[in-house]
């Protein structure tokens, strides 16, 4: 059914403070999860990683009612979406995760390190995960990217190159000491340490 041409998109509104039952029950409410913070499936190939951190507001206070969503390629740089016309994955890795922050503004995702994804000119982008941030007090979600420290490809990444050098570190998850591949990525919504957000 063809509708009449709309006069514009539906505006965004805040996710509000009460989304948890519907969007992030995560065992705290009895509704089932459509998505959670563990993206790894039994047949997923690639380096297992954990990304964890906290979300802070402009006063440096933690944001305990935030929702985070991530979207990423698999270890070979392929998206689990038929719109990615390249060879599709043969695994059940979906590449999408969602979590609500805890009382300390904390979050964690268990996933795999994504592979190299080309930019529109076919140039390689450094491994990265796309991030969307939602919360009470945010009328429209924010987009950012999570990159990984120690990646040689960061130096030539076309998106990181758009970011002033002194703010680039806000986009780079830092590897934590220890044997497990744990990366820390804090999100600052505002202020001196403000995370770089993209206008997409």
């Amino acid at each position: 059914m063809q509708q009449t041409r709309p006069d514009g998109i539906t505006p965004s509104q805040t996710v509000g403070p009460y989304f948890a039952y519907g969007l992030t029950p995560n065992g705290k409410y009895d509704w089932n999860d459509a998505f959670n913070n563990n993206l790894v499936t039994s047949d997923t190939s690639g380096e297992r990683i954990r990304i964890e951190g906290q979300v802070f507001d402009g006063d440096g206070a933690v944001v305990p009612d935030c929702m985070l969503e991530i979207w990423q390629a698999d270890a070979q740089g392929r998206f689990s979406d038929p719109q990615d016309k390249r060879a599709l994955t043969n695994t059940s890795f979906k590449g999408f995760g969602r979590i609500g922050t805890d009382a300390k503004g904390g979050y964690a995702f268990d996933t795999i390190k994504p592979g190299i994804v080309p930019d529109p000119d076919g140039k390689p982008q450094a491994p990265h995960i796309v991030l969307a941030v939602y919360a009470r007090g945010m009328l429209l979600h924010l987009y950012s990217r999570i990159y990984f420290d120690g990646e040689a490809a960061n130096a030539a990444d076309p998106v990181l190159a758009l970011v002033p050098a002194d703010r680039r570190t806000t986009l780079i998850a830092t590897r934590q000491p220890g044997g497990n591949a744990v990366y820390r990525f804090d999100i600052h919504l505002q202020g001196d340490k403000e995370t770089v957000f993209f206008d997409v």
Partner: protein
Amino acid sequence: MTLVYPVQSLAAHPPRLSPAYKSTVKRSPSKPLIPMRHTLSELTGPVYGHETVRENDHDLTVQGKGEPIGERIIVHGHVLDEDGRGVPNTLVELWQANSCGRYVHVVDQHPAPLDPNFTGAGRTQSDAQGYYRFVTIKPGAYPWGNHHNAWRPAHIHFSVFGHSFVSRLVTQMYFPGDPLFPFDPIFNSVTDEKARNRMISSFDLENTKPDWALCYRFNIVLRGRNATPMENS
């Protein structure tokens, strides 16, 4: 289908800093956002399996042991792109307060009763034409702490995915003729009146079920239009 996502469309959205809605003051970025070209990472998005939506997830009146209290309603419409084409097979999530204006949430301390037969969460997938349909209870207005005597107009929260990560939308559906509209800083954060009105559902007598439930239509328009040589974005 190959879609383009003109950034001009984003003008319909509210500014992130809307001081009348006080929580935006410390939760909106103070530095300019950095424009970038969309890459495959932005132009793709999640695909969900059939297991994501269960049989009664679209009907919030049958999820409890008994019937919830309140005015039963049907909320339906199409998920569309900017050219008016239906967005097929996309996940539509919904959450809302009960008929008394109370959410199932540890933080909601509004002294209105919870309804043991109503949790306020629903989920469905649009069909091949982009059509979706929910059965639910009309939510009540509720007070909040933004300013003296602040009340949210009755609303239903929607979360929709669309074709890609940049078509992602979280919004609120309002009901026509709500007397609280002029006083609500969240509704009025959308400065353009036409855009604001796109968040208001319309009463749908044609699809109202006699002796059973009123119907409201709410079309959800996501970013994205077909790339043609005529479009200069």
